[in-house]
């Protein structure tokens, strides 16, 4: 069940009405928990046991961390939690990748090995709820979060359906305090939430799914296309992945808000970043801050020598790439971003006192950044390294081998979308609707939604981040 399907509307209406009809906070939480499991079971009911198992392990680990004062035992319990969570993730997501990579590596040394990969189905959203769950035990270990005795609360935190399958990644310290008291409907910003849902719906269902066929056509056979079409294909993909993911996030945040819960923001106009560091402060914020706090800083962060800090950046980015998918293309995507971050740091260090550099960057920073991000997206989207290489040739060297081409007016579509996005960042579509009388707002909203549906393609493209 996806947020852009009609059945989600009926599902959410049921959840919403029953939830607010209940008075008791515990009953509401139990109801939300049941609905969250039902939401997840709509994909594959068998994997609900995986979510339950992960929650149970972390609940026990949390309790044990609360009881034990001995540092050795505490280390043992946190290691248990990390190993179980990452072990499950590694098995479902990375088993085949590691096996086939190891086999390829041995073959490269002239030691061909016959290996069998397993027919493993990747549970939807496993990377997201694993990180939700791990944030709880790590924070309890660090004594930033008290272990909670209420299993329903922890289960709801791990499985709360809006961010369950594609984020944003919610931390225990952010969400668990929200479960303490009963929500009041009069405190819910319904108007803001439904507008956010509409914005997310437009991004995903109209824009991302609208450009998806062009992107799919290009990346299926990049060698068949001209260089201009490669540019269109890559830029469309940049638009698709942003609208797809941020659209999902907007809808998740909006759905949670309608139930009285807050989720962290995940995007802040990332394509207007003026350098790669800035990009990572705006793109998938919940993941980048999670990796910063639970990986980069624990392995040393900026402490120590420059080389040591750079090593930490690269480790973080490589693992960040691998988090997205079990393929070398994702690892290279992470490596490219890591390299870009290091280049940016070096540039800042070397040009600190150079005024001409600051002046030049005033004009060049944005195009260079967006170009670098698009180059990295090529690896993110390409089926394999060889087709990524083909696209790179077209995108960087303008060497197009094929004759197929897209209409050039698609470049105008890109221009129009960038303009709308820019106007939005300047708050052109800001909140004038907040001042409308409620019945007028409701009527306008209904009409607008009906018109928006005209622009939804008949085919549904699954959310890109579901596979992560």
């Amino acid at each position, binding site marked *: 069940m996806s947020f852009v399907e009609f059945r989600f509307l009926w599902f959410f209406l049921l959840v919403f009405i029953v939830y607010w009809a209940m008075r008791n906070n515990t009953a509401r939480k139990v109801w939300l928990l049941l609905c969250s499991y039902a939401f997840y079971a709509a994909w594959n009911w068998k994997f609900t046991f995986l979510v339950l198992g992960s929650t149970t392990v972390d609940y026990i680990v949390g309790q044990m961390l609360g009881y034990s004062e001995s540092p050795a035992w505490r280390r043992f319990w946190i290691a248990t939690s990390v190993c179980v969570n990452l072990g499950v993730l590694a098995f479902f997501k990375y088993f085949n990748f590691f096996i086939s990579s190891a086999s390829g590596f041995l073959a490269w040394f002239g030691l061909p090995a016959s290996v069998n990969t397993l027919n493993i189905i990747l549970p939807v959203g496993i990377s997201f709820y694993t990180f939700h769950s791990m944030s709880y035990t790590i924070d309890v270990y660090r004594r930033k979060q008290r272990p909670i005795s209420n299993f329903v609360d922890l289960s709801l935190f791990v499985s709360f359906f809006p961010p369950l399958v594609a984020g944003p990644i919610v931390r225990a*310290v952010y969400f668990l305090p929200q479960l303490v008291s009963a929500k*009041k409907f009069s*405190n819910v910003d319904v108007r803001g939430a439904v507008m956010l849902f509409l914005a997310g719906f437009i991004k995903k269902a109209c824009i991302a799914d609208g450009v998806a066929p062009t992107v799919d056509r290009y990346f299926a056979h990049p060698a068949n296309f001209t260089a201009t079409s490669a540019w269109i294909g890559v830029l469309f993909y940049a638009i698709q992945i942003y609208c797809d993911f941020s659209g999902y996030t907007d809808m998740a945040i909006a759905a949670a808000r309608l139930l009285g819960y807050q989720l962290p923001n995940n995007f802040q106009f990332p394509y207007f970043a003026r350098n790669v560091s800035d990009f990572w402060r705006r793109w998938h914020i919940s993941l980048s801050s999670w990796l910063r706090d639970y990986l980069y800083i624990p392995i040393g962060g900026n402490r120590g020598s420059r080389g040591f800090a750079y090593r*930490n950046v690269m480790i973080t980015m490589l693992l960040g790439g691998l988090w997205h998918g079990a393929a070398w293309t994702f690892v290279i995507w992470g490596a490219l971003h890591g390299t870009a971050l290091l280049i940016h740091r070096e540039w800042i260090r070397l040009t600190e006192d150079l005024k001409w550099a600051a002046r030049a960057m005033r004009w060049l920073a944005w195009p260079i950044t967006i170009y670098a991000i698009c180059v990295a997206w090529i690896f993110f989207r390409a089926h394999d390294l060889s087709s990524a290489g083909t696209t790179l040739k077209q995108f960087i060297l303008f060497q197009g081998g094929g004759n197929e081409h897209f209409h050039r007016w698609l470049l105008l579509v890109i221009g129009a979308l960038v303009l709308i996005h820019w106007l939005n960042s300047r708050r052109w579509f800001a909140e004038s609707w907040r001042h409308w009388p409620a019945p007028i707002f409701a009527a306008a909203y209904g*009409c607008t939604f*009906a018109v928006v549906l005209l622009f939804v393609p*008949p085919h549904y493209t699954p959310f890109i981040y579901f596979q992560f």
Partner: protein
Amino acid sequence: MPVREPVSKVHVEPPASSKPTSGKTVIRALTNAAIGGTAFLITCVGLRAILPFPEIDGGVSQKFRFFAAHKDEFDTLFIGSSRVYFQISPAIFDRVTRESGMPTHSFNFGIGGMYLPETAYLLEQILNLKPRNLRWVFIEYDELQTKWSPENQTSRRALYWADWKRVSFLLRKLTGAGTEPLWLPNPAKLRDIMLRQNDEKSTRRLLAFYAAQFEKNYTNVAKAGDVLDYFLSRDTKERSASYLGAAGDGYVTRPNRMSPSQAAAYERGLAAAMAQTDEHALSPYAVEAYRQCAREVRNIGAAPIFLITPSTTQINVAPESTGLAGVLMAFNDPRTYPSLFRSSVRRDGQHLTKSGADEFTRTVAANFVELARAGGIK
């Protein structure tokens, strides 16, 4: 990633008033939700009324536009699947009827892969054009299809006909609900569907699919493209000819014949089908759908004629016309029409070659004239 500033600040509750939720708040919220919902539905209905006929692949739009432009020129219409599209030549039909002293001007509205319920929807749209001179409508007679191949489920072709009249038939058939106007799913069948027992393994998925198609259709999902197509993609002569045929009467020929091995396989299949003695009638859902079609045809003053084509899959369909409110012409018996089942005139079990189609058309026309003269078509 290694960013310095803390990005996600813990923010537990939104800044808001601590007013308790009063009955007034709930009533206001419900009223506004009702206003929003009503505005949504009214807009959907309004848009539906003004949007052009959708741009559908497979010649549907081309044929519909052509027929709309020439609707008063035709008095006879053939509608159905490829078994009508590639097998009924209006030119031959009109020649036979003219020679028999009962001249007609016919149009072939066959579409590849079109079965009930799509046929019924398209027929309704055609009749809504109010063709003044239409007197006879030949409708292919076949079972109500509930299955759609997954690869075609996302096409606009699978969506444009999904109104309540059509979808309710499918839902009734899938849930064994009967053909009464007020219906409820059969409890035993519903249990099997929920538990995926017996033959109901894919029924739940189909029910969800058709319900979604109905919702999408009524809320005009994806129809902005139709507006664009309406203004931009006017039919070229070549494109129209590919669907309307060389004579512009909707008939397209398919000349290829079977290879010897295919012919042998066909003969075996034919013998096996003929060996089965049990005839089966169409499901009550299909019959009810055809009865509706017949009513609509009669409403514009024309006569419905149902047609069972010579196909190996229809050999055992009983030519039972009770309750159909129309004449049934059956050509599915190889013993009565051996010349239509010879492997030399067949492309496959379902379709005839050009020469077979010519012969089939002549047979249909001769039967039609005979029946009309005998006063059998009312």
